[in-house]
């Protein structure tokens, strides 16, 4: 029976060390604590897809970003995917713009080819994209639920 005990001990050690191994990005103790933050963006009553949302903390000197999905929902990231933002008052910007590069694909602009100007269409008015002019604010708290609705007109 002692052989079986040995076999069991070895397998347990093996399994433990597998779970002990993990890589990828890790939390940094120097980073301030972030709190899960999400929300929705609508413009003139319609959910907006692909809008970039930024929350800049006016005290904590950090910015969280997110991009909306097809239902207009976003989840913010500061350092690690969907980790939220530092608690406190936030200045918010929301940007949704279509930019079309009119330069033909076969023109190599990096080798001196002539570029045509970009065609820019603002889906949400430009002023909402500038943090200092958007007039949008939010307050992220430690207790939550930190889910914000931005109904732009």
């Amino acid at each position, binding site marked *: 029976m002692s052989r*079986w005990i040995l076999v069991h001990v070895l397998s347990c050690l093996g399994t433990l060390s597998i779970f002990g191994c993990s890589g990828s990005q890790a939390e940094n103790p120097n980073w301030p604590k972030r709190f899960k933050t999400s929300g929705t963006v609508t413009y003139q009553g319609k959910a907006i897809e692909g809008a*970039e949302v930024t929350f*800049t903390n006016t005290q904590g000197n950090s910015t969280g970003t997110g991009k909306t999905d097809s239902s207009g929902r976003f989840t913010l990231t500061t350092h690690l995917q969907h980790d939220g933002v530092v608690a406190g008052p936030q200045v918010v*910007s929301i940007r949704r713009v279509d930019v079309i590069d009119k330069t033909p694909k076969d023109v190599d602009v990096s080798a001196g080819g002539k570029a045509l100007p970009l065609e820019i269409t603002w889906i949400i008015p430009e002023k909402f994209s500038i943090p200092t002019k958007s007039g949008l604010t939010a307050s992220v708290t430690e207790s939550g639920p930190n889910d914000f609705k931005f109904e732009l007109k």
Partner: protein
Amino acid sequence: MTKRRKSGFTLVELLVVIAIIGILVGLLLPAVQAAREAARRMQCTNQLKQFGLALHNYADAFKKFPAGSAGTGTGNPKGNNNRINAMVGLLPYVEESGLYNMVQSPQTFNGVVFQAGGPAPWEARYDLWGSQFQVKGMNCPSDSPVGDNRGGRWAAGAAATTSYSFCHGDHQTGVRDQGAYQRRGLFGTRSFAGFRDITDGTSNTMAISERCFPKGARSVFGNTIESLTGITANPALCLAQANRATRQYLPTATVSGYRTGGTRAYDGMPIYTGFNAILPPNSPSCLIGNINTQGVMTAQSWHTGGVNCVFADGSVRFISESINAGNSGAPEKLSGPSPYGIWGALATINGGEVASEDQ
């Protein structure tokens, strides 16, 4: 008939032991890979050190550092006015005098006569810019070089490549094709900064770091987002273009058709051989318009967790991607302390910050 139990292992026991050995070998392999990567990173550190020494030797000879982009010449074939990077000037100081002397004398390749100094860095007929004359020490061993071959040019072989990029400061203004040098980073168009311009101290000012080649069409590494207006006022918009966990650009982001970051070893346009310290290492890169325009050009490498960097004092340090990079939502500043934390402070020659990369 007496039943006698034979001594020995049963089949099940043997299978279990084999399984355990398999698991242990499986555990060992990543450790071997990690050791190999550590060795590659050390070699990369050494190569950057050589370029740090080359910068100093160049500065001894000319009393100035080489420019981020310079060059002369017009006419046909097109000259390299303001498009040749510091790598060319550094060639004699990394034991490539032969190549340098060839560049500095008239040459005939593929039936075309080129003037001394060479043509534009994208000229496919000029063999000295091609992979035939690749300088080995310019590629980080952790990197998989991909030479520029856009539009079927470089048919005889891809362009020579480099993993190393010059520091253009912590701002976007002027960090573009033929942009005006802002006297804030060590390199820029016709920068030729001297030691006396580095008032922050040479050990607190970055000279050369890494920008790696892409693996995959939407990888954050080596790919750039185009047409992202608004990043000058709010660079954080660039961060919103990627999934931070998978390090892939989102489907709604416009990835440039150009492979960037060192795909042309001698092109002085910052998107090829330059970086600015706005977003922390290994973050996305974005431009406000096409490939020639200004934007966020982030240092990136395939080393785990950060980038190697040689400072103006010639020391090489590994900068973690979790370095304090300040507020990525802040607009750029062209004078005074950097808004982008320690990372930005290390990129300025005269920001007046007290910076230490331990913070």
